[in-house]
């Protein structure tokens, strides 16, 4: 266990170095946030029927999505990809650590440190600066203290799903090698079905039960709605159950695929 914790800590520290990149990202995230809000405000202004989520909540939802954007597994781990391409992955197998465990630990750090770097300044922008310039466009504070506490828990759950998905994507590299295809499919599904582009509550009613059940909802949509109070704090344990169940499924799938991949592996001496 100590080995995995050491990996997480080392990766976490390494990833926290990219502070300038985070600042540049902040500009882009704010820009996209503003465009999304302008589009949704225009739709709301023309609405003749009541929407299932109020405009202030939708605006908060957009900002939370922008803040926790990097929870989405955009890419596979480059170091792991390199190991698989060069064959150095066999050295990893000689270590007294479980390979899947190592990859999961790395993913866990990768899905936390960059998110923290971007989330905190994004919160400052969306909660403090935006209301000064454009009142009504801001990220509202959490619905209640309970909502905030549950959001923190759900955020942790979102990290788990995301890390499990990243580890699974790493495993698929054993088959695809160049490996840009799978991440692209996953990232697409995650942005659209996670609610980054359009808040999930605004989708047609028939699509919602499916969208809410998918693992992608657990990354951005469900935690954001716990924060804004759209999901009551008392219902938040269900969100956590959803996240943990999907994490278990994705971990099991990743482990199974990896064991098959390792079995295929032929080590050529030399």
């Amino acid at each position: 266990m100590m080995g995995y914790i050491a990996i997480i800590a080392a990766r976490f520290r390494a990833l926290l170095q990219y502070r300038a990149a985070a600042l540049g990202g902040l500009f882009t995230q704010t820009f996209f946030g503003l465009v999304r809000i302008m589009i949704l405000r225009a739709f709301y202004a023309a609405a003749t029927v009541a929407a299932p989520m109020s405009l202030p909540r939708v605006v908060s939802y957009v900002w939370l999505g922008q803040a926790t954007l990097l929870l989405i597994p955009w890419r596979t781990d480059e170091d792991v990809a390199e190991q698989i391409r060069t064959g150095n992955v066999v050295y990893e197998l000689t270590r007294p650590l479980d390979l899947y465990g190592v990859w999961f630990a790395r993913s866990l750090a990768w899905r936390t440190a960059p998110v923290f770097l971007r989330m905190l300044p994004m919160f400052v922008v969306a909660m403090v600066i935006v209301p000064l310039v454009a009142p009504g466009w801001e990220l509202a504070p959490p619905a209640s203290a309970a909502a905030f506490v549950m959001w923190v828990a759900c955020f942790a759950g979102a990290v788990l799903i995301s890390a499990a998905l990243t580890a699974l994507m790493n495993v698929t590299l054993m088959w695809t090698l160049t490996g840009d295809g799978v991440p692209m499919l996953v990232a697409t599904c995650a942005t659209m079905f996670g609610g980054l582009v359009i808040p999930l509550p605004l989708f047609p009613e028939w699509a919602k039960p499916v969208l809410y059940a998918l693992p992608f909802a657990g990354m951005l949509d469900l935690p954001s709605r716990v924060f804004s109070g759209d999901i009551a704090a008392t219902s938040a344990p269900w969100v956590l159950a959803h996240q943990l169940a999907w994490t278990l499924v994705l971990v099991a799938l990743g482990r199974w695929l990896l064991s098959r991949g390792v079995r295929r592996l032929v080590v050529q001496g030399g």
Partner: protein
Amino acid sequence: MDTLVLYIRYLAISLRAQLAYRATFAMKTIGHLLVTGIEFFGIWALFARFRTLGGWQLHEVALLYGMVDVAFSLADGFGRGFERLGRLLKAGDFDRMLLRPRSIVLQLLGYELQLMRIGRFAQGIIVLGWASTFIAWTPATAGLAVVSILATACLFLGIVVLQATSTFWTIETLEVWNAFTYGGNYAAQYPMSIYQRWFQRFFTAVIPLVLASYYPARAILGRDELTVLHVLAPLAGFAFLAAMLGVFRLGLRHHASTGS
């Protein structure tokens, strides 16, 4: 002539290289088709719920979306060399390119034709085709649509060239530029009239997306009477690319290599 032959050879090599990994290529292309297809599904979902957007109907927004998306996929496909300039600089590959007796712009344009962008291109064409069935096309508006798409493609390419120019100073490609490339593409998929004034002004005067795609689209949809202004407006897209190539040449003078 020689230049054109060389360019076509560059493209042919790049295509063959990409087809070497067939499974990944297929997945990337399908992925790209899906990425963008899902995007339009999102717009459809919003219209299914709200019916209208500032007086615009889904098929009208679909025309904007299709035109901008086709243009963006073209810029994305052909501008790969500029997009990767940061990496070329870091590895010192760029210095090797400078040694060759051919224009550096040509070499960067021919660096890699990203075939998987065909996914987005195809999807844009499909949406455009669907939107077309609601439009009473005339030769004039059809010609305007083609000019507008090419102009918008040049405009996006211009942003990518500017982004590349900035890497002469920063080396690392900064994420800031995504706001203007992907962000511009995203914003221009919706009618510009729904945005705030400052936003419209920025995308008219600084990055003339409004001129290259929004005004021509209004004329094609019959929202405006087609005037000579609607035909002149998209020329701003070509002018933008020309200006950015000028900036690129200026930036090139500051290039001092990374020493690797």
